[in-house]
């Protein structure tokens, strides 16, 4: 394994601290970008007054959340209620561990990296349900129940979509998956059919798992007031918010890694350039997701389930079989 700092533990510690702090900073400015972007879409100007072009707005927002009164409802399950926001952020950050940002720049180069991030993704429902149950609020409870149904359903197409690059590259190690796409052979575009479709499936399932519009039914503020986060105030509410954004950024990064060649791009294989390519692709994907978010209205929970079980799951199965056939055909010699 390629270690930057000798021992694996030291490597993971140093990289982990650096990457997580960087990501949290990026996330707060991602929120600024989203607000500006949404503002432009809606013929508004977005944050403008705190700092130049509203650039200090994320800091002001965070400060506002910090000085808000921290309320725990009397009848809430205190332990669960207080633990849930912490877990929400932690779980969202977990997938970061196996993400190769550039060649060798990965916190833990696991051989079962794909399995790890799928497991971490499935964990997101735990803090959501803890919040839903612990709040002892009817809206939160309904939101929590919806989250479980949604997570169970969408975990399956997510696994199937992630299986396609695994089959194509023959490895569950994310670094190997990226290496298999080197030279522009990105799985989203090659082989033409299954890779692209699996990419879309992956995006849909990630949106659903991260409770993003149009799949944000556990939060559904027009129906459930604020769903699972109804009873949360101040920074605890902010943690859910942060968790959601981290999840969507990491989701975009995983999509880039699995389907868009990760850090692969034109130019020499230098760390800085690779990192730049990776960040650029992630930014583009995130912006596309923002565009979706600010355009679509929300699905109903039963329609969400129908979409998953009737359409996404069968198409996921077909894609897995198709990509397996493709690999078999290539092994048989392909066209040659």
């Amino acid at each position, binding site marked *: 394994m390629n270690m930057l700092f000798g021992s694996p533990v030291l490597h993971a510690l140093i990289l982990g601290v650096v990457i997580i702090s960087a990501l949290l900073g990026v996330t707060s400015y991602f929120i600024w970008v989203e607000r500006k972007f*949404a503002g432009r*879409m*809606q*013929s*508004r100007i977005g944050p403008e007054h705190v700092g130049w072009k509203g650039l200090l707005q994320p800091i002001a927002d965070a400060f506002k959340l910090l000085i808000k009164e921290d309320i725990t409802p009397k009848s809430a399950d205190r332990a669960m209620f207080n633990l849930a926001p912490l877990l929400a952020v932690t779980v969202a950050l977990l997938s970061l561990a196996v993400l190769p940002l550039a060649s060798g720049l990965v916190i833990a180069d696991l051989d079962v990296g794909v399995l790890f991030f799928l497991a971490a993704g499935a964990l997101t429902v735990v803090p959501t349900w803890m919040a839903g149950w612990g709040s002892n609020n*009817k*809206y939160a409870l*309904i939101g929590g*129940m*919806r989250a479980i149904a949604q997570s169970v359903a969408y975990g399956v197409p997510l696994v199937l979509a992630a299986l396609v690059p695994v089959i194509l590259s023959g490895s569950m190690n994310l670094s190997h998956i990226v290496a298999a796409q080197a030279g522009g052979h990105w799985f989203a575009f090659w082989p033409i059919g299954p890779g692209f479709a699996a990419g879309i499936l992956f995006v849909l399932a990630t949106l659903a798992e991260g409770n993003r*519009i*149009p799949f*944000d*039914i556990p*939060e*559904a*503020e*027009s*129906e*459930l*007031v604020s769903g699972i986060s109804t009873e949360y105030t101040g920074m605890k509410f902010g943690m859910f918010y942060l968790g959601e954004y981290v999840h969507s950024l990491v989701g975009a990064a995983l999509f880039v890694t699995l389907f868009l060649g990760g850090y692969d791009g034109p130019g020499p294989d230098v760390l800085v350039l690779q990192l730049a390519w990776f960040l650029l692709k992630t930014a583009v994907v995130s912006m596309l997701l923002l565009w979706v*978010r*600010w*355009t*679509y*209205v*929300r*699905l*109903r*929970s*039963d*329609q969400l389930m129908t979409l998953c079980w009737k359409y996404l799951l069968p198409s996921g199965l077909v894609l897995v079989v198709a990509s397996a056939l493709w690999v078999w055909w290539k092994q048989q010699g392909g066209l040659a």
Partner: protein
Amino acid sequence: MSTHAPAHPVETSSAPAARVPTPVIGPRANPYLDIESYEAEGDLMVLNMGPQHPSTHGVLRLKLWLDGEVVVKAVPYLGYLHRGVEKLLEKLSYVQSTPIVDKNDYVASMTNELALVMAFEKLEGCEVPRRARYLRTICAEMQRVASHLLWLGTFALDMGGALGGGTTAFMYCLRERERILDLFEELTGARFHYHMMQIGGVRHDLPAGWDAHMKQVAADILARIPEYESMLSENPIFRARTRGVGRIDALLAQELGLSGPNLRACGIDHDLRKSQPYAAYDEIEVRSAIAYEGDVYARYVVRVAEMRESLRIATALIDGVPSGPIMGRKPIETVNAVKPPAGEAYVAIDSPRGELGSWVVSDGSPKPYRCKLRPPSYHALAALPYLLPGTTIPDVVVILGSLDPIMGEADR
């Protein structure tokens, strides 16, 4: 442009509707269900939605009995915005009444004033000059567009959430509505509570250049309506959320006394602008929009078609505004200037929400003896106990939004 054919054809015609609506669509929910006798799979959960809730359009409280997420029984509780307007009208003179009813249907103040003022005029027997009638019609139609724009925006918000596509549609709709408010501000000096209608005519004459400004606004909004359609009704998620949801059959609609777009979406061609023309509607062709399915989507297409039609009517009228006085009686100089003879009068007009009626009884004094208002929203809310059972919470919000209730009007 879109290639999909609309599933709900919306007809706009000045002739009576050709098709007969389906009187009964399916089994009707029992609004008086005895909860004790209902056997749930688990426990029933009682959820009080509102009066403080983002999507109850003000302060409506819905008591929902939920089996899982499915509504078993729904009871709307009204009165959280009761201000005693009808009693207040008895205590105020005829002259002082119009600004009070501005606050009833606070998104369509023009039509509120119009309904009350027309009842007073009928009681007093005074003639309204033709110019004033034209101005009243133009104001009422532009008000209808403003009101429907606000409805469309908030309806998208109900469906799409405050942090998503719903807000985008909401912002677009409010952007256009703002221009109509600008027009009204130019005309009356106020943006919400206009006090434009006056017994015997209107209070403000057209400022110079208003007609050109109005035509520009109407043309702009007309050009942008396809944008909203491409964002909402051409979006498969929107269609999935609205088609077949909250169906009202024609019989139920008539039994409950629904009116306006809610009734016209059930296929019943009832439009007071056509059947008993008031103001200047007898001088212009009114083509009311009709759809037959009676579901949320039908109510949406009817309102969007009405926006187009209202813009057409207003634009057509502004060119032909006759010259002449804007008041048909001697100027009102004192509070007690209006003293209609003893008697009673009922006047109903087609407000953006439906049939808005005012019944006034006079005893010959400067104050009405009794004043009763018939708000269309109040009757629309009566449909909720029939529509909600069997649906889930997301649909509750959508169905409620599609009825376009304004609590200020329903509670008075």
